[in-house]
């Protein structure tokens, strides 16, 4: 679970039973909880939910009434008409996407009646919206105000205190700095001449210390599941660390070398390490593959010198195989959190990439020689390949499954 400092159900949003809403009879509205008996407008949803994201995160319940005598605890569970749920969800999404900048992650669940334990009738529903603490506050409302959830106040407070606003910015900067160090640390500690790729698949941008319980056998099992189709690369060498596990692809390699590896932290974050073999052009190193041979000949002709070629066929294979293992692990842990990703290539400078894709090789015949100019290359999941028309992805995947 990402960023939920408080969870009234002590289990993930998708897993608590409808009956367990009963615990809310003992939970007061406050920093983390807000009860609404009726749906709000998109603008007001944006206001209330951004107030949670700006503070500590929280839970908004639509269709729950507070108890009598201003107890602030859940008093009854009338729900809203089930037929209205779709329209209310649209309002919630619109509230977050159109009325808050930047928008933030939230999750929701619909509890449909009848649920006798709480008195929710058939045809009525309760909407549960969970907002984790936002990693990059402040989240600004379309009114121009920055709202914060303050104790049991039913109305979020529009913040005008300069010190508090500064603290929000510092929080955003601190997380950014922490993430940057986390991502760059292994890159900067490598002093070899070899090229490495680190792929970060992150569920927890706040880098919390502990979220998932898993023993090393469970980790091993996930890393060694049988795969009959597509990329398969079982990890066969395991270490436990203070905060997670490492699985490496040892196979017939020297265990002292840097190997293909998957590092898992107990907060759900993962780093894939993929050494990329540099292939120095010499007759005995020429690959048997015709397209690779042609590529090397072209590079020799262009450079008149020995050139350093990065074999990205292996890289692509390893990325897919390890990502498959990572998804196996998510299934074991029951994680449905969003995934943020970053790819870092280290020491790729002055190398020329090779990948056995016809479209690329054909293009290189025209472009001739080119090489990476930067020492580190970064790509994040925010930079999507939207500008590349990538047609027929699904059909391509189906063909792979079919073994074509």
């Amino acid at each position, binding site marked *: 679970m990402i960023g939920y400092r408080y969870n009234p159900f002590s289990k993930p949003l998708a897993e608590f039973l409808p009956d367990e809403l009963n615990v809310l009879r003992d939970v007061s509205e406050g920093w983390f909880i807000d009860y609404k008996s009726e749906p709000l407008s998109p603008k007001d949803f944006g206001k209330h939910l951004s107030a949670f994201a700006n503070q500590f995160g929280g839970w908004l319940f639509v269709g729950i009434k507070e108890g009598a005598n201003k107890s602030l605890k859940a008093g009854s569970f009338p729900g809203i008409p089930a037929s209205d749920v779709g329209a209310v969800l649209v309002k919630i999404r619109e509230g977050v996407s159109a009325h808050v900048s930047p928008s933030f992650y939230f999750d929701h669940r619909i509890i449909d009646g009848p649920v006798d334990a709480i008195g929710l009738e058939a045809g009525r529903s309760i909407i549960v919206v969970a907002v984790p603490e936002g990693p990059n506050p402040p989240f600004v409302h379309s009114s121009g105000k920055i709202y914060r959830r303050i104790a049991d106040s039913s109305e979020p407070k529009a913040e005008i205190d300069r010190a508090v606003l500064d603290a929000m910015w510092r929080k955003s900067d601190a997380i950014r700095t922490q993430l940057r160090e986390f991502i760059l640390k292994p890159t900067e500690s490598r002093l070899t001449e070899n090229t490495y790729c680190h792929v970060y698949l992150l569920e927890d941008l706040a880098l919390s210390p502990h979220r998932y319980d898993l023993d090393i056998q469970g980790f091993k099992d996930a890393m060694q599941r049988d795969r009959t*189709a597509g990329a398969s690369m079982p990890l066969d060498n395991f270490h436990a660390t203070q905060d997670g596990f490492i699985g490496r692809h040892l196979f017939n390699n020297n265990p002292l*070398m840097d190997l293909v590896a998957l590092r898992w932290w107990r907060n759900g974050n993962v780093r894939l390490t993929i050494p990329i073999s540099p292939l120095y052009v010499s007759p005995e190193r020429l690959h048997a593959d015709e397209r690779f041979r042609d590529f090397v000949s072209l590079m020799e002709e262009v450079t008149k010198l020995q050139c350093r070629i990065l074999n990205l066929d292996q890289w692509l*294979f390893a990325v897919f195989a390890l990502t*498959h293992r990572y998804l196996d692990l*998510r299934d074991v842990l029951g994680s449905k959190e969003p995934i943020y990703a970053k790819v870092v290539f280290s020491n790729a400078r002055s190398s020329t990439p090779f990948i056995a894709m016809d*479209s690329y090789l054909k293009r290189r015949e025209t472009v001739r020689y080119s090489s990476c100019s930067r020492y580190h290359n970064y790509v994040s999941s925010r930079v999507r390949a939207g500008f590349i028309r990538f047609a027929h992805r699904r059909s391509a995947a189906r063909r792979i499954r079919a073994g074509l």
Partner: protein
Amino acid sequence: MLTDDPQHDGFERVFELIMPLAISALWSLGVTLDPANGDTLGRDFIVAMKRGSGQHGATSLEHENG
């Protein structure tokens, strides 16, 4: 943010999740794939994957680093 769709299974799920990021990563290294022919990319990727599997005995990568 990447999209993990558990409704997809096996390789298709991996493909949907990681391929856009992998393409961006390849671009960063200068592997400028031909945007005018999206179909070629998918077909070539399959070829590359099959080559990767066959070449390395399906489950292993031998390193030349270190």
